């Protein structure tokens, strides 16, 4: 097996990879650049810098898991590959946050949907945040390059039934739908992207940029938590980090100090503001952690007349943007429509209920379809996003109040999702809401949604996309970094992840992160080598 797996082969060939749990004494290391985080942003950055001949140290709080560990097992995967063992929620508990915590970050567990940043989003950034350099024309070559690097192409195989229901519903209603581009190579169409790709087909950071960086002499510490960037005068001197025990959650007591000329933070929209806040990084306009976005997601489930097998096949292959930008970029809350894969543990956690009703609901799984709406937050004044702050123990937490503007969008999405499912032939539909029964007709559902209480906890909300919190912009009074990810105040600090987005993306964000990190890392490499 070791001969066929990219990671196993690299480890055998002598990659510099250190598991924090194996460290027995405090130590110091030095490199040209320390990159914190190994997801879409950190992986891209590390590969580009290492290929440019710079010495790079990568730091990852989660552990290194790869093909040998990916056994299509939900419970093990959720406990080991996700933030807070899949229990991460917003501050009041109302939104469940699905986010990776392992080498490769969320790209190791995402469902492979790979969209370019929509033109209206880039144009909005130009007009609202002065980011003219990120126009669709200027970004095109970076998207082209990253699509090649991650083998991103529209999915050519037929969609699975779960996705086809979205297509059929849209088709019947005259609403637009498209095929999703995916970052896969030789995909087996199994359906287990969310628990770590078992076949190495997924071209996330774990199988592309991380190996690329390690092949070029980068060093990776995993199971090592970045605690604090320590300043000396006006520059960052070193990163202070804590090794984690083999369980991945308990600090072992061993500390590591990492010195560098430059530091790139790519620890996610929750992790990056958290690290900057813990480090007391200069923040004269109090911007760190502000305007954090989530693409809040609500969902409906349907019982279909025939077999759906929603646990098998490429999890996401069809989407609809019918309601995303159609009412203006800063009009009423727009949303993208997609479907989620449904495996038993995920379904049991998402479908709210207990007892006989729950046994009955979950027994429908083989004939179940679900549609999700991803709300485009951050484009309207009534959608200012959430705020990342620190808990007493220094860990970051996101306070994300759902505004009336978003509730209106979520309610609208409930109508559209249920209508799609009935149009595709659903026998009955249930909203993911504590009060929702199963509805057997579209008319009843519509009447039910009319009366529905839109309130935290009662409406089940999720997010798999965290963005913002260290927003970029030309005006330092309302942003943390400039359009190249360079910190406005600290000259040897860059931020290369989704935290720099000044709004949400309006699409699954991985390709937006890859492309912007590639652009900004190419410039950083030039600067550091000159």
């Amino acid at each position: 097996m070791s001969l066929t797996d990219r990671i196993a082969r690299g480890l055998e060939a002598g990659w510099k990879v250190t598991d924090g749990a194996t460290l027995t004494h405090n130590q110091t290391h030095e490199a040209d650049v320390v990159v914190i985080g190994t997801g879409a942003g950190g992986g891209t950055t590390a590969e580009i810098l290492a290929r440019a001949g710079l010495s790079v140290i990568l730091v990852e709080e989660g552990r290194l898991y790869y093909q040998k560990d990916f056994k299509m097992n939900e419970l093990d995967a959720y406990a080991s590959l996700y933030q807070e063992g899949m229990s991460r929620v917003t501050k009041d508990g109302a939104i469940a946050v699905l986010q990776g915590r392992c080498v490769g970050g969320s790209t190791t567990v995402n469902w492979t949907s790979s969209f370019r940043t929509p033109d209206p989003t880039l144009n909005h950034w130009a007009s609202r945040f002065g980011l003219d350099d990120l126009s669709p024309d200027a970004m095109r070559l970076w998207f082209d390059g990253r699509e090649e690097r991650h083998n991103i192409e529209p999915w050519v195989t037929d969609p699975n039934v779960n996705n086809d229901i979205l297509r059929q519903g849209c088709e019947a209603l005259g609403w637009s739908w498209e095929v999703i581009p995916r970052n896969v190579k030789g995909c087996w169409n199994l359906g287990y992207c969310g628990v770590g790709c078992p076949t190495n087909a997924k071209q996330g950071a774990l199988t592309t940029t991380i190996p690329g960086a390690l092949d070029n002499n980068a060093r990776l510490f995993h199971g090592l938590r970045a605690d604090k960037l320590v300043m000396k005068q006006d520059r960052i001197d070193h990163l202070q980090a804590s090794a984690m025990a083999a369980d991945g959650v308990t600090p072992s007591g061993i500390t590591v100090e990492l010195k560098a000329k430059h530091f790139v933070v790519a620890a996610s929209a929750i992790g990056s503001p958290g690290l900057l806040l813990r480090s007391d990084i200069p923040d004269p306009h109090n911007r760190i952690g502000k305007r954090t976005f989530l693409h809040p997601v609500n969902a409906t489930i349907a019982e279909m007349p025939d077999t759906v097998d929603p646990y098998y096949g490429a999890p996401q292959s069809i989407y609809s943007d019918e309601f995303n930008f159609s009412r203006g970029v800063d009009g009423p809350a727009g949303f993208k429509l997609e479907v989620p894969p449904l495996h038993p543990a995920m379904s049991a956690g998402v479908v709210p209920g207990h007892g006989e009703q729950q046994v009955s609901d979950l027994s429908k799984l083989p004939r179940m379809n679900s549609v999700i709406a991803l709300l485009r937050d951050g484009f309207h004044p009534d959608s200012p996003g959430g705020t990342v702050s620190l808990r007493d123990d220094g860990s970051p937490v996101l306070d994300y109040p759902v505004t009336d503007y978003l509730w209106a969008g979520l309610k609208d999405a409930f109508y559209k999702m249920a209508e799609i499912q009935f149009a595709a032939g659903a026998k009955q539909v249930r909203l993911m809401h504590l009060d929702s029964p199963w509805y057997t007709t579209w008319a009843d559902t519509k009447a039910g949604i009319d009366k529905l209480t839109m309130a935290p906890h009662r409406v089940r909300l999720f997010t798999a996309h965290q963005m913002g919190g260290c927003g970029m912009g030309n005006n330092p009074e309302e942003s943390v970094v400039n359009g190249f990810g360079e910190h406005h105040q600290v000259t040897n600090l860059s931020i290369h992840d989704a935290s720099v987005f000044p709004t949400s993306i309006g699409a699954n964000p991985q390709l937006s992160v890859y492309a912007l990190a590639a652009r900004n890392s190419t410039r950083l490499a030039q600067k550091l080598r000159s």
Partner: protein
Amino acid sequence: MSETLPQSVQTEAPATAMDRRSFLRTGLGGALFLGTVSVTAGLSGCASAPAGRDYPMPEAMDQSYEFRFLTRDDIVLFKALLPAMVGPGLAEEQVVRRQQIQATIERIDAGIHQFGPANQKELRGLFDLLNFGLTRVTVARVWSSWENVSPETAHAFLERWRTSGIGLFNNGYIALTKVSNVAFYGHPDHWHLSGYPGPPGFAVDSLPQFKDNA
């Protein structure tokens, strides 16, 4: 849930002039409230240490699991809740049923261990509130201690928290059902209940990671 919380609970609120429901709806109020209960529970002799290998399942055949988060009281709580939580999903046969409950509680504990300190603290507050006699009666409105609670009573409690107009109770309902449902339905022993056939056989047969451990 209750429109009026009993006097004993009201007196613990630092802002008695505030409308009780709006107080409980706020995260801050909720945190203070649960914090109060946790402290009180600790002082009143509720078990607060993880149960380790010492837990009240004398009937269990396998005692090898070491609890790292759940206390003896928490275990009793889940023994009472699970029959209502997963209801007819449990086997009729008593020995099998007990094993299913034990294994599910062990998986809940293992799962919570991976949650990390912040969410563990939240759950500690919730479990203490349910275990501490005064709040069990006043807030959960469960009159007898959990070891004597019938599945019907446990179901009624879950229903009150599910249908409550108070967000904090809805949140408690979600927390309890989520950890239980995921640990129960997510395990291969119970996949048949959801009709999930498991990972595709051809993939399991041909992928190297399944051969190494065979």
